[in-house]
């Protein structure tokens, strides 16, 4: 259950359970929410990761969506986890986002990678998979 969106279009999506369509929906919603959040936080200068906990999106499904901005209005890391996964603590989420961030930076270091491309890095996939395995 993970998402990786850049400017509202997904660069990388990996979900463990369920279908991706829902995730896409989530992505869109979260992106919108993120935008809203951004607007609300326009005053501040967001330099570091910004972790945005959106809380429940769907009361029924009770998803927790975490957001982590990489760059302002740039890449957003979105993580959607089932609320059933309450075992996840904030620190864990943060660490996961940090890993995501690091992996993403590693990808960016690749001169062959154009920002905005879908992410095909196998290492990234591996990392994300392992992370998601831990969570989901």
């Amino acid at each position, binding site marked *: 259950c993970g998402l990786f969106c850049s400017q509202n279009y997904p660069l990388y999506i990996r979900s463990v359970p369920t279908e991706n369509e829902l995730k896409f929906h989530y992505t869109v919603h979260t992106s919108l929410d993120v935008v809203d959040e951004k607007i609300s936080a326009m005053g501040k200068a967001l330099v570091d990761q910004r972790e945005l906990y959106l809380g429940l999106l769907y009361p029924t499904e009770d998803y927790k969506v975490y957001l982590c901005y990489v760059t302002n209005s740039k890449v957003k890391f979105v993580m959607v986890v089932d609320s059933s996964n309450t075992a996840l603590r904030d620190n864990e989420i943060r*660490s996961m986002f940090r890993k995501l961030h690091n992996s993403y930076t590693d990808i960016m270091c690749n*001169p062959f*990678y154009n920002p905005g491309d879908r992410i*095909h890095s196998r290492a990234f996939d591996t990392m994300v998979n392992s992370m998601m395995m831990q969570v989901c």
Partner: protein
Amino acid sequence: TVKDLPLPRFVVSKNEQESRHTALYSSDADNPASYSGVIPPPPPGRIQVKKGSVSHDAVQQRTSTDQQESTSPVVSPQQSPPTSPHTWRKHNRHPSGGNNERPLAGPGPFWAPFSEVQPGSSTSSDPIWSGHSPPPHQENWVSFADTPPTSALLAMHPASVQDQTTVRTVASATTANEIRRQSSSYDDPWKITDEQRQYYVNQFKTIQPDLNGFIPGSAAKEFFTKSKLPILELSHIWELSDFDKDGALTLDEFCAAFHLVVARKNGYDLPEKLPESLMPKLIDLEDSTEVGEQTGEVGYSGSPAEAPPSKSPSMPSLNQTWPELNQSSEQWETFSERSSSSQTLTQFDSNIAPADPDTAIVHPVPIRMTPSKIHMQEMELKRTGSDHANPTSPLLVKPSDLPEENKMSSSVKFTAGNTVTDGYSSSDSYTSDPEQIGNAVTRQRSHSGTSPDNTAPPPPPPRPHASHSRSSSLDMNRSFSVTPGQQQAGVVAYPPAVPPRPQPSQGTGPHVHRSVDADGLIAHTSTSPQQIPEQPNFADFSQFEAFAVSGVNKEEEDEIETHSEVLQVEKPSDSASSLRVAKADGRVEDKAPANVPSSAGKGTTPLAPPPKPIRRRLKSEDELRPEAEEHTQKTGVIAAVLASQPSIPRSVGKDKKAIQASIRRNKETNTVLARLNSELQQQLKDVLEERISLEVQLEQLRPFSHL
């Protein structure tokens, strides 16, 4: 075919290459299976099939060469890559043995074989395989690779030949670089033969003359784009080869990348993880640890699972290589990244930088400070002109303390303390602390100004120092500030207390006093505790002096003595506070009002005179040298008190008690005021000392600037 393989191998012909190819393939297939252990020794053919699908990879596995041959239709091409075999062969000399597949001698041959790259790569893979040879399954071939590389190669040759053909066919675009890359393919499946390495190095030089430098990502991108590999694959190769993720390629990284490109060109699948042989550290270990490298190849076989294991072992070796590489910092960072979580990574990275500069910066500061400090201390010594031993001791002691300021202040304190009565000095030192602090801070700043390095460290020291001194000064300030407030309160309370005092007995007096103190001087007491340690002597001294003085006097003195005794018995805080209050009063120069109110409360006349003379006394004392003055003040105060006492006897006996009580109170007030005076004087002295020290520092700085 196996039998045939050995033959061609020696011939440095395509056969070798082919054999290598096959060997590589097989070895790849085998090695991964055997080495990684994770991958079951799938029939080399299968693996090769996979690779075959990829094109060349399968060929490389020696063991699977045969199978490869069967699976891979590459056979004819073997002939084509003549040059590559040459190069390959050269590589054969590689320890891997017969794996001449990696003859990377000349780029030229590689070019030609590029089309045959596959074969070449296969050959190169053979060497790699040979390195990997240990794998048991197909051990025959593997062992061949290891021990009788030639045989293995030979065996591989046929297969490799076939593969080569396929590879060749697969490998379409063949640029010089590509060929080179191929030639630079790894010896064991991923090992880089010397020839190949040399080729890579040469290529590296074309981009980056400094072998210890980096190839920026953009340049590397252009370079490798020439290989006409898909961007995706190039991206993957980059991910694999850029070990430290710095966006640039070192020589080792470049060689690894090149090697991977060559391999890819030859049809070898890209590993999921960087083969050990390609790890930057491996560059050094390549020749030596062919076997070990194979683990990396495991990934090649396409078992991501293996990647982690191979990676972990490579980690330590990476550590080793890190120092070798010039990317110390990067290596650190990347290594930490890989080895530790991202969190730790960031922390680690962040820790790296500050550590050094801080340490670097810290050093000069203390050193510098000491001289000035010592100087300051010396100055203080001069000023104090007393207790040289003491100043030195504090100096000795203090140097170990915080930055100079602290030392200075402390030394000053000490000196001051030493010079003056402990009680007074302590209090004075405290009072002087703020001044000292300021001076110290300024001194530090001056120091920092002189030494750029100290700029960073100095600030911290001053702060703690300042805080330190501030604390003390604050205490003093607090005490003093409190005292003023308390003075007023105390004064207010005092006057009321005073009146009751004379009436009540001495005990009550003190009680009242205490209560007064307690009430109005709660803060005072709070500060008093701090000051108490500083001024216990004060109290004691004052008490003592008062006591002594009183003792000298008559019966009233006795009373006074008792009173003083009581006072002494009283909490020093009380006396101190009272004294402080009194002193504060004096300081505030409300002595008159304070005394007046106090006296007014009691008996104006008796009180007034005593305070006045005391005040006068104090004032006169102020004029005198602080230390001496303090002393004299004390005596003066005492004298004043005593003087006041004489007036008492004049009063009627009835009033005697009251008067005596008032006298006592006055005495207390006087002592307090005297203390205040002494403290103030001490502060004055300290300030002067600080000024002198500052001046000295200035002078010191000036010559430095001149220098």
